[in-house]
């Protein structure tokens, strides 16, 4: 396996995702002789994982079972160890499309953070593109390098440990796109412009606060970027539920009149409505919004260098 190529079977050294149930999963590094504890019991890597097909059901020691999944940037985003606040797949998807990324694209990113976006970018630009990612925090930069190695994508990414606002991306006139997720992106717009190809490219900046966006937009305009556009994307997730609603008893006047305005799923209602104290119900499927949802991640400002 690698994060940029599907494999059929689980191999020693792979990063796999153990899926226990709805939104309950975690990554494991597959290693001979290692065991992993789950609430369903122990998974022995040598016998339970290595050589098995991705997507298989694995029975744990207590008789419970889990699924073992092939890693993808999206699964990684849901399960990676957080070193910083991360970008999630909803924002990542619009960033990728609006930056016009595809195989062969050269992308600059800062900061690397926990590498959530980095993995998605690498996936999209592989096998001929490259990611230049800049992280000013030395430990985070090192950790990111280590993860890229483990995930078999180190040849597609260069991690530089420096301050992007002071020193830029370490490359010039080669990028098709630049992405910024730093506290003061307006200080990096000039560096972003010089990292982009002379014939042009796209830029995106992610900021949680509108004041950051305003300063960034002004800086973009100053540096001659065009098509400056700020947007926000929100994900609404629905739970699929079967709902039953009670039919109110209006004390039907005409006895024996069983004609209803709508279908009742309770056939016992058809009898004598007046004496039937048990209320009937109507059942239907509904997509119910979650009780609480993410209302704001950040504003995304896009622009073009031309």
């Amino acid at each position, binding site marked *: 396996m690698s994060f*940029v*190529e*599907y494999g*059929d079977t689980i191999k020693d050294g792979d990063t796999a995702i153990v*899926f*226990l*149930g*709805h*939104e*309950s999963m*975690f990554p*494991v590094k597959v290693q001979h002789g*290692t065991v*992993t*504890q*789950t*609430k369903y019991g122990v998974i022995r890597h040598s016998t339970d994982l290595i050589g098995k*097909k*991705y*997507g*298989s*059901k694995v029975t744990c020691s207590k008789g419970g079972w889990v*699924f073992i999944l092939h890693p*993808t940037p*999206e699964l990684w985003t849901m399960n990676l160890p957080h070193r910083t606040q991360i970008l999630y797949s*909803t924002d990542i*998807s619009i960033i*990728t*499309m*609006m930056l*016009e990324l*595809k*195989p*062969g694209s050269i992308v600059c990113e800062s900061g690397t953070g926990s590498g959530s976006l980095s993995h998605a970018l690498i*996936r*999209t630009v*592989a*096998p*001929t593109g490259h990611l230049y990612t800049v992280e000013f925090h030395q430990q985070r930069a090192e950790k990111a390098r280590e993860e890229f190695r483990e995930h078999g994508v180190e040849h597609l990414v260069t991690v530089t440990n420096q301050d992007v606002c002071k020193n830029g991306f370490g490359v010039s006139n080669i990028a098709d796109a630049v992405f910024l997720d730093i506290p003061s992106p307006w200080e990096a717009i000039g560096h972003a412009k010089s990292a982009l190809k002379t*014939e*042009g490219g796209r830029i995106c900046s992610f900021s949680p606060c*509108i004041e950051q*966006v*305003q300063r960034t937009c002004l800086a973009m305009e100053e540096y001659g970027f065009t098509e400056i556009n*700020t*947007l*926000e*994307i*929100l*994900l*609404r*997730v*629905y*739970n*699929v539920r079967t709902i039953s609603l009670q039919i109110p008893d209006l004390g039907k006047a005409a006895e024996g009149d069983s004609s209803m305005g709508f279908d009742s799923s309770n056939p016992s209602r058809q009898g004598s409505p007046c004496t039937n104290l048990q209320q009937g119900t109507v059942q239907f*499927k509904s*997509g119910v919004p979650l009780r609480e949802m993410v209302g704001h991640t950040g504003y995304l*400002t896009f622009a*073009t260098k*031309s």
Partner: protein
Amino acid sequence: AMEGGPGPSPRIREGDCAVLKRGDVFKAVPVLRRRKIIFEKQWFYLDNAIGHIYGTTFEVTSGGNLQPKQEVEETTTETKEAGTDNRNIVDDGKSQKLTHDDIKALKDKGIKGQEIVQQLIENSTTFRDKTEFAQDKYIKKKKKKYEAVITIVKPSTRILSTMYYAREPGKINHLRYDTLAQMLTLGNIRAGNKMIVMETCAGLLLGAVMERMGGYGSIIQMYPGGGPVRAATSCFGFPKPFFDNLHEFPLSKVDSLLSGTFSTETLPSEPEDNTLVEEESNGLTEEKQTSLQEAEEESPTEAAMEINQAEEQETMDINAEDVEFKENKEKENVREKQRKQWERRKKLIETAALLREKNADGLIIASKFHPAPLLLSLLEFVAPSRPFVVYCQYKEPLLECYTKLRERGGVINLKLSETWLRNYQVLPDRSHPKLTMSGGGGYLLSGITVVLDKGKPDSSDSEAMKMEEPSSKRCKVQDVHC
């Protein structure tokens, strides 16, 4: 120097498919010499644009020629006079001293839009009393109307999906561009995949998938009727090799493929020929219907359609020329037809073999059909531990898909979702969300395939129970290394 690169040239070339942009309005057109283009109430020729870099902004001159726009000179009105509020501004309809005829005369004289705007400002009695912001807004509005500038940009999923959503949402089942972006990410679309695509979005989704795969890997497009519609796909201007591993398979043969009755032996030449001919004619009528619809929708100027028209014209010309050689031509036609049918059948058999391997790396569906039967059948061709994404303009069919998939088993991490998109105006002291936002961009059902447990229907039931657990019951796990 640009030739060897992976993408198309950054320069506009004859025969390219380009996108015209004015403000937020896009239009895809083929770049042809001596071809009159009408866009946003302006007409011009693209001849002069050839050779320029994509992204160049042009001014339209009086003869319909394009001229690269000079660097924007700051059109600051020297006397920065402005009011503070509008308490004394009365709308008497007489603030503009220039009449309609005056403005028309200026335009007819070939005066630059920039100058017309300046004259409008000078002849507006209320301009100086307007607040600075209102002046700004006034200038912007007039510029938009009188300054004839267009930018020529290279087509991309970003541009074409925004263009289609704005111009012809009906043709792409109202698939909004942010929803399309979700599909590409949730489906883990990337180079090297073997993808199954089922769409009736004019080929836009197919094009988006092709762009993300960059010519690596393979795509099997499932199509209804006589053939796949790829009007939008052709707007992308993909290099030829991108089509080498693009396969197509008729939906009407899926059941026979799954039941095992589809085979080379069950493809007798006679009846198969008939169906092919029939299918082809169906395809034609479908095409005609689309163009009719296009005419009704008052936006009949898609690049693909123009190309179609050009092709039609060509065939007509050829027919006229060859009247004398009619007999020879007919024989040739028959032979050509047979050759085409033979090739088509060969391709069909190849594609069937690819599907039979049942090891696709993903399935992506966005069509006008009910998604449940598509999903239940086409998932059979997908390998375990691979993502799938289904788009539907409406939520209810996806609720049904969800239930049916639970019954079937073999899928996990099912998620029904929708995205909302909000655009912002960001200006000093005037930042706020844009007035209007899209009401609906459709819904997605996504998930991951797993090895299907055969003969254990109970387990899928308990699986379903487990899935419906609220997420608050998250379990804590830990790795133990020894």
